[in-house]
């Protein structure tokens, strides 16, 4: 279902709840991927692992109990005032 709001206001937090941002006026035709690319640096999340490799980060929409795909449109996947939680796939340990 396409959201009739031309723009949405959203919230996003990191997985530990220690970072939070407000997103104001997000256009409905923005993709989740574009949203994430703007969000990650603003949440000061590292984009690469200790070896310089890109770190995958998933956007979790708890309201629907699922992760969003980068290609989804904000206007189709989200409602006004929805909250996204960013889940990094990240490695710990001795690592070599």
């Amino acid at each position, binding site marked *: 279902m396409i959201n009739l709001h031309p723009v949405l206001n959203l919230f996003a937090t*990191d997985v530990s709840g220690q970072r939070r*941002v407000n997103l104001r006026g997000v256009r409905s035709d923005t993709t989740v991927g*574009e949203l994430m690319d703007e*969000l990650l640096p*603003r949440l000061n999340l590292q984009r690469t*692992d*200790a070896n310089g490799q890109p770190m995958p980060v998933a956007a979790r929409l708890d309201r629907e109990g699922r992760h969003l795909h980068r290609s989804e449109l904000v206007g189709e996947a989200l409602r006004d005032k929805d909250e996204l939680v960013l889940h990094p796939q990240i490695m710990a*340990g001795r690592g070599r």
Partner: protein
Amino acid sequence: MTRSAHRFHLEFLTPQGQTLGQLPLTPDWEPALESLKLAARRRGLVVNGHHATEIEPVHSEQVAAPLCAGFRGTLRLPGGATVVEDFTFTYFRREARAGSGELVSSGKLKEGEQYLYRLVAFADTVPAVVRTNGRFAVEVDEAPVDVRETRLSDWLARALPCGPALATDFPVFIPQSVLAESATLAEAAGAKETGGVLIGHLHQDHAARELFVEVTALVPARHTEAELTKLTFTDATWTDSRNAVALRRAGEQFVGWQHSHPGKFFCNPACPPERRKTCPLMRDFFSDEDVTFHRTVFPRASSIALVTTITDEGLQHALFGWRGGVIHQRGFHVVGAQQPVAVEATINPEKDHASPCPTKSP
């Protein structure tokens, strides 16, 4: 917003003082900012989203411009309160290690050769570029910090200190049961790493002007990808961990994380017993990967990381956390312990490993 009117570089030198090169820094000021915010909260100040941070180089009689001994962070809060903290140049030690790797790649430095580095700063004449994407506005909102008002002295009276403590560190209280669970998980995982999320509460004692951390439980990480030398927390791990906290309905928050190092399996069995006793991989340590994990998931300065290592002699625990924007081993208090817990640890053990362990059996 964090602002600096200076550009910072690392300058590399041989031990004899010959210049090897310079590395322009793109500093990650976040740990410094978090350290300032923690200092403010320990003073009972309210930190919200409307603060500003300024960074400037610190010079001294011994270290004249453009060289600097470190940098000074100033946090300006609404209402006029300010918090100031000095950070040493070792804040950039990870960047220094990465820069030395580039020097090795370019042939200016040999593998294993010693080098020195120092911090230099220059006035920045280029105005900062403000990025806009034109599609929406992003406002950083200070995440609420849920703090309980309790008396620190009550906690200290029923806990045993262990590990290397500094008087300037905020106290951390961990139940003996959490250490026992960490040990059980590590032993059960055998030759694979395992981990979990530490949950609990932040406490404030306004009379003592102190903030401290109480760990209430360890939520074992499920849906991980575990191997001998690494442990990956997947998006399913985080979903499961957050659900576990919600189901407990105790208002707990993520205060840190735990993982194990199967140290006795890191070393080759062919290693002589005397050498295994002194092997740095047999001690608790915090690797580059662990530092990246902590920086990414637990940036708040009150966040902690518990490492449990399986050694030939048994299990060891060590706690790590932020201090001056850099991760160090730190002390903690065990609630419900019968006797002190022995801890010993290091950061980045590979450099202590003067010569490699044999990789083949004789």
